[in-house]
């Protein structure tokens, strides 16, 4: 017999082609095609389809009751749950003990009986849609179903391997708490709650990210924080629509006021005490699951010059340190450009003897000061970057190369002048002495154009660059609060906690820029004095 092969027409061909293409590929699962069923067999089938090729999902059918007449199903993700909890409490109680009520169990009442009398685990909830059930499974809860009931029981047995609480590396202190946030959101909120034991501390959760379903906790003290700011934070978080959030910087960049600004407009910290202190000033904290870095809004410029330790050391020392950091900020931003401007244009302002020695050093150097400065700065940035990325044993080699080759050999070879090496070194130290890493980066970025302007136009260029930066800074706002807040616009009262840190007994008011609901921070006359000490702590009435 001969088979006749007929040519396909266009529609048939398309259909065939589509079949061919779809067959081997797993198409995305649309949860709308599935629903919770009364029949446990259908449910099991649904879960197996949804979680096909997900090797970490455990789907366990079993039977309950005295005669094993009630079919049940357990679904969870291996690794996200605490196995001992599931084995010892959940399975044991439903299969063996039954709370002594196994004789009551029939198919009809099994669900309520299990929920109310049998399962001996604290957090249990009832879910009625498959979307919620799937979400619960994926965040590490155990889903429990019995035959004949549409609803599912979601049992909280979360437990996974997590990093323990340790001292934050990025914000080490001499005096102060040594605990830092971890990657697990629940631990973090707990650490915060341990600091602020008040029902006024609100922790609201939003879930963002199509695939990561990351929990974002917005924390604030409802009696202090400005309603407008809280509202604004939620508004900005709500409009985020992204496939995944892996770190709080995603949120930071998505909710900033001026996305193109080189300046960081949101402070981050790893320290629970910093978050607690900021919340008590009326700010709002944004925690993101999966990262120890917590965002704090609104942020003002002065915060980047402050360290948590300022509040734990004596106020003289803290005030001096703050002023020192301000100086360091200026050095980190301006020193290379001042050197370039002074040696290129304004030699008269250098004291004569120093000028002679600089001129001596520069005699054999073939490059203009501008080029010298830019090359050295760039080399230093490369060294720093190399030192961070390399494994520790090799990292030391980098510093040797930096110290010997750049520091010594380059000078000996007459490529750069020793004065330039000193300038670059001091600039580097100054930029490392700033407590906020993100602000130091900004200064490093801005340093290059300013040096360039200084090489072109001398001090005129530097001043204009500073004016331009100032204009930019004054135009910035962070969640409605001017970035340069207590300075411009000027608020004399708040200056006590900017470059100075007055003693605690003088910090009577919260910063007004944050527009807190309750301005007063502490009672009157907190200054310790003989009269106060003799009284029963009721201030200066004695």
């Amino acid at each position, binding site marked *: 017999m001969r088979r006749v092969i007929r040519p396909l027409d266009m529609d048939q061909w398309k259909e065939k082609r589509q079949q061919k293409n779809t067959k081997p590929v797993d198409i995305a699962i649309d949860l709308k095609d599935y629903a919770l069923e009364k029949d446990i067999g259908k449910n099991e089938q649904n879960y197996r389809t949804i979680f096909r090729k997900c090797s970490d999902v455990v789907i366990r059918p079993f039977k309950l009751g005295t005669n094993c007449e009630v079919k049940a199903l357990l679904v969870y993700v291996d690794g996200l749950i605490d196995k001992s909890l599931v084995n010892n409490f959940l399975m044991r109680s439903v299969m063996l003990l039954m709370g002594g009520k196994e004789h009551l169990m029939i198919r009809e009442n099994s669900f309520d009986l299990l929920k109310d009398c049998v399962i001996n685990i604290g957090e249990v909830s009832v879910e009625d849609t498959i979307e919620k059930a799937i979400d619960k499974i994926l965040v590490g809860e155990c889903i429990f179903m019995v035959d004949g009931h549409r609803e599912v029981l979601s049992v909280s047995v979360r437990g996974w391997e997590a990093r323990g609480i340790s001292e934050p590396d990025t914000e080490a202190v001499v005096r102060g708490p040594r605990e830092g946030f971890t990657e697990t959101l629940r631990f973090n909120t707990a650490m915060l709650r341990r600091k602020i034991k008040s029902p006024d501390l609100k922790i609201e959760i939003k879930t963002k990210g199509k695939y990561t379903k990351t929990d974002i906790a917005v924390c604030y003290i409802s009696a202090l924080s400005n309603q407008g700011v809280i509202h604004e934070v939620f508004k900005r978080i709500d409009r985020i629509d992204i496939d995944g959030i892996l770190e709080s910087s995603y949120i930071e960049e998505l909710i900033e006021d001026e996305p193109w600004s080189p300046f960081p407009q949101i402070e981050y910290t790893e320290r629970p005490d910093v978050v607690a202190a900021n919340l008590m000033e009326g700010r709002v904290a944004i925690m993101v699951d999966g990262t120890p870095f917590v965002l704090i809004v609104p942020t003002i410029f002065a915060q980047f010059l402050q360290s948590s330790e300022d509040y734990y050391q004596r106020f003289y020392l803290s005030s001096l340190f703050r002023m020192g950091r301000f100086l360091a900020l200026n050095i980190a931003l301006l020193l290379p450009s001042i050197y370039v401007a002074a040696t290129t244009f304004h030699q008269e302002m250098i004291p004569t003897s120093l000028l002679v020695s600089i001129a001596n050093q520069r005699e054999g150097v073939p490059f203009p000061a501008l080029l010298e400065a830019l090359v050295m700065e760039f080399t230093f940035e490369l060294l720093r970057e190399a030192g961070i990325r390399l494994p520790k044993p090799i990292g030391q080699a980098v510093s040797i190369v930096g110290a010997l080759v750049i520091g010594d050999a380059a000078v000996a070879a007459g490529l750069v002048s020793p004065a330039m090496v000193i300038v670059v070194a001091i600039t580097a130290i100054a930029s490392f002495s700033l407590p906020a890493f993100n602000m130091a980066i900004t200064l490093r970025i801005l340093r290059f154009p300013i040096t360039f302007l200084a090489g072109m136009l001398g001090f005129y260029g530097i001043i204009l660059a500073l004016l331009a930066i*100032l*204009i930019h800074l004054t135009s910035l706002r962070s969640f409605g609060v001017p970035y340069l807040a207590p300075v*411009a616009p000027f608020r004399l009262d708040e200056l006590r906690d900017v470059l100075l840190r007055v003693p605690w007994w003088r910090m009577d008011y919260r910063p007004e820029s944050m527009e807190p609901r309750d301005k007063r921070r502490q009672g009157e006359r907190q200054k310790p004095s003989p009269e106060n000490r003799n009284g029963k702590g009721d201030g200066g009435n004695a």
Partner: protein
Amino acid sequence: MLEKGKISSSQLTFLIAGFTLGSSLILSPGLVAGHDAWLAVLAGLGSSLLIAFIYTTLAVKFPGKTLVQINDIIFGPYLGKLITIGYLWYFFHLASLVLRNFSDFFVGLIYPETPIIVFLIFITLTCASAVRNGIEVIARTSIILLFVTACATFLTTVLLVKDMEFTNLLPVLDLPLKQFIKASYAATTFPFGETVVFLMVIAFLENTKQAKPSVTLGLILAGILLVVASVRNISVLGVTEPIHTYDSYQAVRLINIGEILTRLEIIVVGNFLAMGFLKISVLYYGTVLGTAQLLNLRSYLPLVLPIGILMVILSILQFESTIENIHFAFDIYPYYVIPFQFGIPLFSLIVAVVRGLPKKAKEGSK
């Protein structure tokens, strides 16, 4: 509304002080009076307080209205527009004059080989970015800049104490009365009377009633700093003071503390430039905003760069040399500004009072 920003009364005070210091830190006012220049500045300050009273009375009578709108209300749509154009020309021209002063200063003293257009363009660009950000930003920067400048003025004065000869100030008022009056009048018109541009700014004050005290305080603050600078210059430079075109600069050059702190002028020049930036920005802003209001535009942003370019061009074209500029500033300018600084404001106020205008304006708006 073309401008959404609001400024506080303290910001207005600092802005006025910074504006008034502006170019008068490099070109000292009252130079004609020789070693009595500081008295001329004081007299100028006194008379300018009277003039400022006229401006603020006008501004308070028409709260939330800029000069352009006030002119329209007082003189009607046609004559008002004509007067507005005159004022816009004045602001524009004054801005280009200040630009030229600063650029001449830099070319003449520090960068002799750089073409003047470089300085003009760079500072105009900086001011343009400030103007684009609105009056709120300019007012906020003024606080920081004025604080730095006040510190620098006092610091340089302290560092120069050992070089001062206070006998240089004697004899007091040893000059013909006519000459003193001329000098005081010059000091009134430059820099104090130039605050007329703030009629474009006071409209954005949060509380219009505070306009009078803030303006007065700002003028006094600037006056004190100018008198301090003037006394310093005269006592340090002595009889040679009047022959230096830029006497503050000359005085600061002489600082020499143990051969370490020497020739600090370049740092002080930074302050001069910052004040000049404030002055140019306010004038630039006044011109741009006024033009936008005159033409009924929805936003003034498209005007910023074109007007800036015109300003640069005008400041290059108007003088052949620095000497022409100085000649204009000291001999012609005081008479050129009579209508803008005294004539029209006084006339406006009289017309407003006679016509009982603010009430009418209210009824009209209802």
